[in-house]
């Protein structure tokens, strides 16, 4: 029988809640309270997440966020700023010691991205891993990924771009120099693509999630069993949301 992992779908949550859930699942898994878990989720309202090492005020125009109703949050993972609007976000939590997870961090990025690549293939999209942490299709980025390892547990989360509004994204991101904003927008348009752009039509979240689910099952030769967050995880995520991800001390700490 195939190994069974937990499958979660949580739609339309706030930025702080989404990041709190990923961390809560990491803690619960590290304490062997829950199995390895794959979650697909969306963000509502739209949000910008920044990497752990980034400076919030240098990367994000906070006034603009307020005006547009865009939330912001600092992740526990490194990497760059991401505008989460039309996308499917995934997260996977699994013990570092699991036989399916390479010990080497770069190798494990490639392995987990393999699941996303299989998922995209289920949507008839050919793509490949582009180190350090991207997946590209036709030479353009369709997915960005970020991993942390804490409590002997791996958390990797990442995006699958369903559609992309580069102008809106850049209206929220700070650029080093206003004169080059237009140039940066056109550069990013050249470098980024989306499921909608590649297929010529909108794909529903449900269809994309189903394709990705089969991608993870195929890559890791496991079965994803639909489940729910446990009460323990819900309590933890409330705590993390309050103390960390919606706390200015955390979000502004760098």
């Amino acid at each position, binding site marked *: 029988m195939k190994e069974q992992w937990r499958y979660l779908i949580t739609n339309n949550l706030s930025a702080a809640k989404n990041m709190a859930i990923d961390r809560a699942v990491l803690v619960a898994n590290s304490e062997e309270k829950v199995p390895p878990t794959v979650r697909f989720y969306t963000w509502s309202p739209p949000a910008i997440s920044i990497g752990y090492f980034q400076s919030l005020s240098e990367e994000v125009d906070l006034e603009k966020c307020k005006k547009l109703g865009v939330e912001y949050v600092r992740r526990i993972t490194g990497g760059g700023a991401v505008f989460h609007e039309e996308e499917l976000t995934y997260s996977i939590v699994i013990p570092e010691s699991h036989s399916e997870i390479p010990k080497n961090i770069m190798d494990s990025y490639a392995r987990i991205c393999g699941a996303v690549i299989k998922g995209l293939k289920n949507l008839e999209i050919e793509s490949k891993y582009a180190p*350090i942490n991207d997946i590209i299709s036709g030479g353009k980025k369709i997915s960005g990924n970020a991993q942390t390892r804490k409590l002997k547990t791996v958390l990797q989360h990442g995006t699958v771009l369903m559609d992309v509004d580069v102008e809106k994204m850049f209206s929220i991101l700070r650029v080093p120099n206003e004169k080059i904003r237009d140039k940066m927008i056109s550069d990013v348009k050249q470098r980024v693509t989306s499921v909608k752009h590649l297929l010529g039509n909108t794909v529903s979240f449900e269809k994309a999630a189903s394709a990705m689910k089969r991608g993870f099952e195929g890559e890791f030769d496991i079965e994803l069993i639909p489940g729910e967050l446990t009460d323990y995880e819900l309590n933890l995520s409330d705590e993390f949301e309050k103390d960390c991800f919606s706390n200015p001390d955390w979000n502004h700490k760098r």
Partner: protein
Amino acid sequence: MNSKSIYKIPGGKLVKISLEYDENNNTISSVKITGDFFAYPEEAIETLENSLKNTEIKKEIVLKKINSLISSNNIEFIGLNAEGITEAIMRCLQ
């Protein structure tokens, strides 16, 4: 004195340095290392920043100090390295 620099690590990520330094002694008063790189464990970046205080701003000295902190704190960088941080710090003086 305060100074900032942005440096793209060859084959890696962007590192941004915000440096406060003592001109008389040519030492680091405080340094912030930010950017879209990865480091494991993440919290080690704060240790690194704190431990760089009072370090003389000379390329070999800064590099040696960072390398020794990487090894004593078991830091693994992805998209960043000791040479890149050193280069970015040195560029704050230009």
